[in-house]
């Protein structure tokens, strides 16, 4: 029987397209539109061209928070990816112990962001928080509301606590997908534990790890609620990351044009990095 090509089914996509246009495309276009105007209120908008972009690109406060953002995301990846792999390697392979580990590890992932922020805000306090009090009892001067380094360490620690489980779970599923025959072959060759990790487990984890890196990068790059609740961006502006700077600008100062220009630049950075990761993933799949 000959197949007749029929593309009419594409019309079924139309409702989704309209919905996406209404909820995502047109709002994005509106942001582009706002970015070239100075808006004081309804009916009081003035065309300013690319002035906002020029100002935003030269704004030191924004440059600083962009650098902070990259440093933060870099540390998040440097800590969480190796740690996640390590945790996944140490987890029991199956049985009751395995399930128990999975549940325990997944708990932080189930807690809403603002609750995580609140938990750590109390947990890290020197007077009533267990963690802060304990560190102070060890004779180390620790105060995340006053000291820049302490604030950074606390925010990082909180993020590691919250999100390393995601990396661990992804790696765990990747490890379980490796056929037993690979390990048997390695045993016959008397391969060391390190060799098994380096030449069997790590290459097999590649695609899972790319997804983990992408997810963790995007999430940490757009982090807002947790540091906002924990430190409020302080002390000073030392833990004020990009999205918080943007929110202050858009809602606090109601500087719509400038905030729109800034969010477009933010969007372009995220778009570029996601595209790079996406290309890396599809490229890795093709090589197989």
């Amino acid at each position, binding site marked *: 029987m000959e197949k007749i090509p029929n593309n009419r089914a594409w019309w079924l996509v139309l409702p989704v397209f309209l919905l996406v246009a209404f909820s995502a495309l047109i709002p994005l276009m509106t942001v*582009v539109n706002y970015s070239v105007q100075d808006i004081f209120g309804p009916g009081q908008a003035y065309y300013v061209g690319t002035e906002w972009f020029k100002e935003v690109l030269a704004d030191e406060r924004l440059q600083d928070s962009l650098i902070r953002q990259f440093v933060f995301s870099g540390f998040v990846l440097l800590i969480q990816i190796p740690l996640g792999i390590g945790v996944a390697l140490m987890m029991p392979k199956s049985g009751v112990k395995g399930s128990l580990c999975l549940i325990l590890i997944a708990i932080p992932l189930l807690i809403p962001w603002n609750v995580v922020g609140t938990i750590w805000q109390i947990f890290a306090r020197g007077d009533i928080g267990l963690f802060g009090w304990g560190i102070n009892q060890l004779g180390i001067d620790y105060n995340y509301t006053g000291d820049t380094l302490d604030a950074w360490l606390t925010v990082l620690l909180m993020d590691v606590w919250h999100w390393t489980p995601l990396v661990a779970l992804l790696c765990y599923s990747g490890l379980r997908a490796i056929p037993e025959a690979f390990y048997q072959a390695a045993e016959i060759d008397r391969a060391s534990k390190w060799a098994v990790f380096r030449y069997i487990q790590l290459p097999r984890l590649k695609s899972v790890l790319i997804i983990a890196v992408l997810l963790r990068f995007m999430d940490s790059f757009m982090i807002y609620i947790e540091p906002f609740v924990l430190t409020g961006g302080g002390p000073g502006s030392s833990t004020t990351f990009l999205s918080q700077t943007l929110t202050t600008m858009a809602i606090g100062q109601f500087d719509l044009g400038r905030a729109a220009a800034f969010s477009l630049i933010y969007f372009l950075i995220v*778009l570029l990095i996601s595209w790079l990761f996406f290309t890396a993933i599809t490229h890795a799949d093709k090589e197989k």
Partner: protein
Amino acid sequence: MIAWMNWTPTVVVFFVVIAMILAVMTVYEIVSPCTERKGFLPIETTRGDRLFIGLLSAAYINLTFLAVSDITLWVALAVSVAWLLVLLRWG
């Protein structure tokens, strides 16, 4: 609706041009479907990939011009268009 949402002519032209590029590329694709190929870019790309790379780099070219110089953006636009054409042909 245009007045109510404060659409400015510049932005309207911008999006109309992008919509037209997409429409033309869609028709072109239907008339003569493309296959993945390897040009000077390190990865195999389709026509659509190259268009996306071209548009994204156009945004960065324009931002770079804005950030480091006072040259009019028409120059940046010319550079972007030239780069986009080079990409589509040899990328």
